[in-house]
């Protein structure tokens, strides 16, 4: 397949790995921001091809993981209503709220539907005029154009029985938050390639300048991730801290201006609570006042819900790169993808779930990391 298989070439991967080995002279801690990148790294074992003094820690970029428990409970309260058709990406169905998950609610009779795209909800709304169709609009900036377009088109077409429950999160404030932490260990970032496809990378330039850390906007295939790592360690070894773009085949400095225009018409920046991390100022999107009729939180007046996370879970530390999944005593024991205790185990792209899926919880795999901790 074009633009996919070429970036999984083993011979080129080995050249890149060799070049990384030649370039590195000191220990560096790097963070890949996206859950999709984490998944690729663990799936292909890329971290194990790197020199021992390069440590990859895993970032907060899994929107399913960081959607707050309060928001999930709100989704469940809305989805339980008999007058609602609740639509969601498939990833959210199994994420446990305080009491259950969406699949359990569906088995109890709630009308819950998995959609491929938020735009599909408009068809469902037109076909069910006596129902209220609600879409669970989670995601990073990558997903914002789709969610914004659904609202924009609903408004343009006069569709009134459609609303979205918005839990959008933004990458740059989360990176700044990680760098501001007194416990921060991260010295360079593999930046979020698909987020930047939409947003461009101008907003990362002040971060590199302020914190003096390099950021390389990076894709998701093995060669992308290895090349991004090479570019990042070259910057670190040379004492540079710049934004570089490994993923130039789809990422432009200004992103997609048409998408940005619709996002900015429909959404505005707001404070957002991240599961496992807490509230980060100006780290989310909410609907603008002009689109308040499409705001499910307003339409259904869901009250603040009191929630409690398991005390054992260290997902907040994992999401900020301070701990690794196997530093947690519950990892692979009390906490598995079937019985997740917290954010990083609830989605396949969470660092803990990725480690579990590729056998990193098995004892025979652990010693390779023992040297590094």
């Amino acid at each position, binding site marked *: 397949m*074009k633009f996919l298989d*070429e970036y999984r070439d083993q011979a080129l991967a080995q050249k890149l790995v*060799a*070049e990384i080995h*030649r370039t590195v002279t000191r220990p560096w801690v790097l963070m890949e921001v996206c859950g999709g990148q984490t998944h690729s790294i663990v799936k292909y074992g890329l971290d194990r091809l790197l020199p021992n003094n390069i440590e990859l820690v895993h970032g907060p970029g899994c929107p399913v993981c960081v959607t707050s428990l309060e928001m999930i409970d709100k989704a469940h309260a809305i989805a339980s209503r008999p007058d609602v058709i609740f639509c969601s990406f498939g990833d959210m169905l199994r994420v446990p709220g305080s009491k259950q998950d969406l699949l359990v609610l569906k088995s109890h009779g709630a009308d819950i539907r998995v959609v*491929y795209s938020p*735009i599909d909800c408009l068809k469902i709304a037109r076909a069910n005029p006596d129902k209220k169709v609600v879409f669970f609009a989670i*995601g990073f900036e990558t997903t914002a154009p789709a969610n914004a377009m659904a609202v924009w088109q609903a408004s343009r077409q006069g569709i009134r029985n459609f609303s979205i429950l918005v839990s959008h999160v933004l990458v740059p404030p989360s990176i700044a938050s990680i760098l501001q932490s007194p416990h921060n260990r991260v010295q360079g970032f593999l930046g979020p390639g698909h987020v930047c496809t939409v947003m461009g990378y101008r907003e990362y330039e002040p971060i590199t300048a302020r914190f003096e850390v390099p950021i390389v906007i990076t894709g998701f295939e093995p060669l992308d991730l290895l090349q991004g790592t090479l570019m990042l360690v070259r910057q670190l070894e040379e004492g540079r801290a710049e934004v570089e773009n490994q993923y130039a085949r*789809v990422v432009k400095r200004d992103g*997609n201006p048409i998408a940005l225009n619709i996002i900015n018409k429909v959404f505005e920046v707001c404070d957002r609570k991240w599961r496992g991390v807490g509230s980060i100022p100006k780290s989310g999107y909410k609907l603008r006042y002009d689109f308040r009729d499409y705001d499910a939180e307003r339409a259904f007046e869901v009250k603040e819900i009191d929630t409690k996370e398991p005390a054992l879970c260290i997902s907040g530390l994992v999401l900020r790169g301070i701990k690794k999944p196997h530093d947690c005593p519950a990892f692979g024991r009390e906490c598995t993808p079937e019985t997740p205790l917290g954010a990083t185990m609830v989605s396949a792209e969470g660092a803990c779930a990725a480690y579990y899926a590729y056998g990193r919880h098995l004892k025979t795999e652990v010693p390779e990391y023992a040297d590094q901790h």
Partner: protein
Amino acid sequence: MCLAIPGKLIEIAPDASGIRMGKANFAGIVKQVCLEYIPEAQLGDFVLVHVGFALQKVDEAEAARTYQALADLDQLGELNTPESIDPQPLTTS
């Protein structure tokens, strides 16, 4: 979740409500895509698709340039390739 994959545009046609839509072929799987964000896309272009929305055309010239840079990596480097490199093939999917 931020998964986006390249597909080849094989059809462009507005839907009943006037939204610019099309179909893209992802290695044999054909899906509907919204083309509102890349109005310049033409049949045969590769587009990067996320949750049914084409977010950007894949820049074939940039892709070729990057790939060539990878292929041109210092050949001498292979002599220093450390033994710890995993011999397993990377193409598992």
